[in-house]
């Protein structure tokens, strides 16, 4: 397979996780996902838009997302993504992993 230029592993992995988490609330299009992440993180996390769409397509190809075309809120043709069963499982695994990582990091930061 052609290797598209990859963002750093952490960023990539994090972006995937954030996308999965966002879609856990329901189907959404790419623009909505970007906006949601930005708004929910109080504008701290800004999604690199150039990385978002390759990430979405990669997740779709991995079978974690499914997509369908629908009409958007302003009646335009938009591609909606939703989680698949595999995607839900992946989200649970990544959340758990993330939780352990952050608490471990927090532990070190507090002790030191």
């Amino acid at each position, binding site marked *: 397979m052609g290797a598209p230029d990859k963002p750093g592993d952490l960023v990539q992995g994090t972006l995937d996780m954030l996308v999965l988490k966002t879609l856990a609330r329901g189907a959404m299009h790419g623009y909505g996902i970007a906006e949601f992440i930005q708004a929910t993180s109080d504008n701290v996390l800004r999604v690199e838009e150039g990385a978002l*769409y390759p990430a979405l397509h990669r997740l779709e190809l991995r079978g974690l997302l499914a997509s369908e075309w629908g009409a958007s809120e302003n009646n335009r043709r938009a591609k909606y993504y939703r989680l698949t069963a595999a995607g839900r499982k992946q989200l649970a695994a990544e959340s758990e992993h993330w939780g352990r990582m952050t608490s471990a990091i927090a532990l070190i930061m507090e002790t030191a």
Partner: protein
Amino acid sequence: MPLKHVVAVWLRMKAIVHRRRLDRDLDDELAFHLAMRAQQQGGDPAAHAAARRQFGNLARIRETCRALWTFAILETLWQDLRYGVRTLAKTRAFSLVAILSLALGIGVNAALFSLADAMLLRALPVRNPQQLVEFVRAGDGSLCTNLPRPVFQRFRQDRDLLSDVFAIDESTLALGAGGVTEPATAHVVSGSFFPALGVQPLIGRTIGPNDDLAGAAHQVAVLSYPFWSRRFGRDPSILGATVRLSGEPVTVIGIMPPQFFGLDRGRVPDLWIPLAAEREAGDLWVLGRLRPGISIARARLQLSPLFHQALEDELQSSSRGWDRKAFLSSRLLVNRATQGTSGVRWDYWDYSNTLKILIGLTALVLLIACANLANLLMARSAARSREIGIRLAVGAGRWRLVRQLMTESLLLSLTGGALGLLAAGWGHRLVLGFLVDEPSGVALDFQLDYRLLAFCLALSVATGLLFGLMPALRATRAETSGVIYQAGRQRGAWNMPVAKGLLAFQIGLSMMLLIGAGLFARSLRNLAAADLGFAREDLTMMDVGAAGKTPQARRRFWKELTGRVARLPGVRSVALAGDAVFGNGGWNQTVWIERPGQPAQKADVSDNLVSPGFFATTGIPVLSGREFSEQDRENAPLVALVNQTFARRFFANENPLGRRFGSDGPASGDRYQIAGVVGDAKYGSVRERPRAMVFYPMWQEPARTGMVLHLRTAGPPAAVNAAIQRQIEALDGDAMIGAIRTLPQVLHGELREDRMFATLAGFFALLALALGAIGIYGIVAYRVERRTAEIGIRVALGAQKGAVLWLIMREMLMLLVAGSAIGVPGALLVARLVKSQLFGLDPWDPLTIVSATTVLFAAGVLAGFVPASRAASLQPTQALRSD
């Protein structure tokens, strides 16, 4: 997780099929995003521009996403293929030379592989061929598949190791049907033969154990498909009909299907008859089928005692003069016979270098084609260095470019390979025609099989990599900046030392082929002109079989026959012999020479049985004593003639005339007195060393069934053949006329392999020479073009035409010298391997080496002279203007 991969592949396949939709969807999705963003930021044109800026490189993101959805390699491969085809189509001459030379190079290799595959690798079309084994007697430094009969009788009693044991003998019989009597080759088989192989007849039935009983009521025969077609035009009514086999009525009970050829691909018999029907009990090929789970080693170990008992049986029952000690010390070998007991295999692979030399020759051809192409490709990439430089400069990855150049190379090699596969189709028949007398008597299955396909594919890919990789790597190494500014040709990617090295290597390989071709050609000439020891002109030999049941009847037949033939117009003289004067070589035999006051001396000799007039007819000179006469008959004192080698080897300085020897053990009763010494001759083959030979007069022995009629004719032999055939038929309708051949024909057959080597090597050498000339022409033309400015200056400064010519030619001569420096030692090294094939000259034959070098230099100089003379006639103004 496999399922995940399946999903991914499925989605991509869909994307390939709906490629347009994929592109549109992608565009729509990204456009939607941009529109939403612009709307959020006010919706005016400035907002649109801002949205674009924020998004980043749109084209790149789209490409990234697209790449995810497609099989990127397939995509670029398709691109490269189309580009490659366009590029190759633009340079027709180059592509043509490349594809044709590859087609030839791969074709000859494929033809040979196909032949070797058919000869050596294919299993017999019988039930479980992998269980079949053949038994071999190893002793006296020789291997023998003809085993004494007791071996078969002993082995067939075995129940533990072998599930079947069967035996075959070969015999030529006179088959009379529809008023015509002709020789037919029969495989005389045990009743267990067909059941053991598990083969079914096309029509009728096969020979079973009940047909192979001593007192069987009817004699039966099964016909082979080729014989049924040739002799009876596939007439089914022959089934159940009666034919005459050597005078006996025999019923045809079955016809075998075309794919069944017996056990030897090299010798398809005309018919099969039961062993019990055989008149003269000779040795047998013995084969068996191993029970499941029995290994070759175990079979050999446990059958060896039986084998030695059988040898003891043979010594007790046989009157043949076995050397008891040597005979008993011979060992049993068990060989797999999955592919049959192939005479072809023995003749061309196991015990000869024929195929190996051919493989070496063809591999050399392919290697030369590869070196040539690598060189041409490098020259071409020099011409393309500008294109490549620009592509590198605008950001094409080096590997991407290498991949594209390799696609072109593989395109060439695969096209060449496909053409080669086609060429192999008739090529192997051509080679087979060189190898055997009667290609129709050889059952080789040339069907295209996966092995040949895989071989061609692998060879094509390997070839493509071999000639394409280095030029591709070199071409893409060009420094970008220079190339763009410097009009391409100044910083050529054609690295001169490498290109020169390659060309020298190619010239060296061509030199090896040339020397090989020269050696084979000279050897063939020596063979054709060799002194055979007898007169070869107008000598005809004809196999004749007497039908008479008693020696007396046969003697009358032979006497009458020679009398009648001698009176025919056009016949100068006629004689009979047990073996043809040339081609068979007589039987090996041991005689014991009487020495006064000492025990008899043992002597290994060959012998032949001849009629009076044999030496006059064949032209073998009688050096001392006398030739046989009609007086040398039964009840007259036994006499023999010996050849010079016999006289020299066993009598040194003494006079052999009048001395006596026995032929049946040291104390044998019958003693032959030497009545004369005849000149040495070649008996079996042109290559044989002089051997001791004994001739016996045929009238002193009971008359034989089969003899060879020798004729010296006044004119063309064909004219009297028909008359002789009429005489024989008039004399005895059941008598058989076998092969008729002239001595030149025999010699022609004998030298078949040498002619093949000479022809093929000569053809390959010409090819190599042509390719080498193309290579030299290319490299010199390229050098001239590069040095145009320099040459212009030299001419302007007053350089003479000759000096310029020399400037260019010097480089090329050095290449030729370097090539010879590789080729001559290489040839000397390899020539040792073909030493056994050469006759009358050394592998280091100086004349051949000198001629090959001369031819190569002449071709090289000629090829280089054309562009060099163009350089020499350059006008300085024109040269300087060309930048």
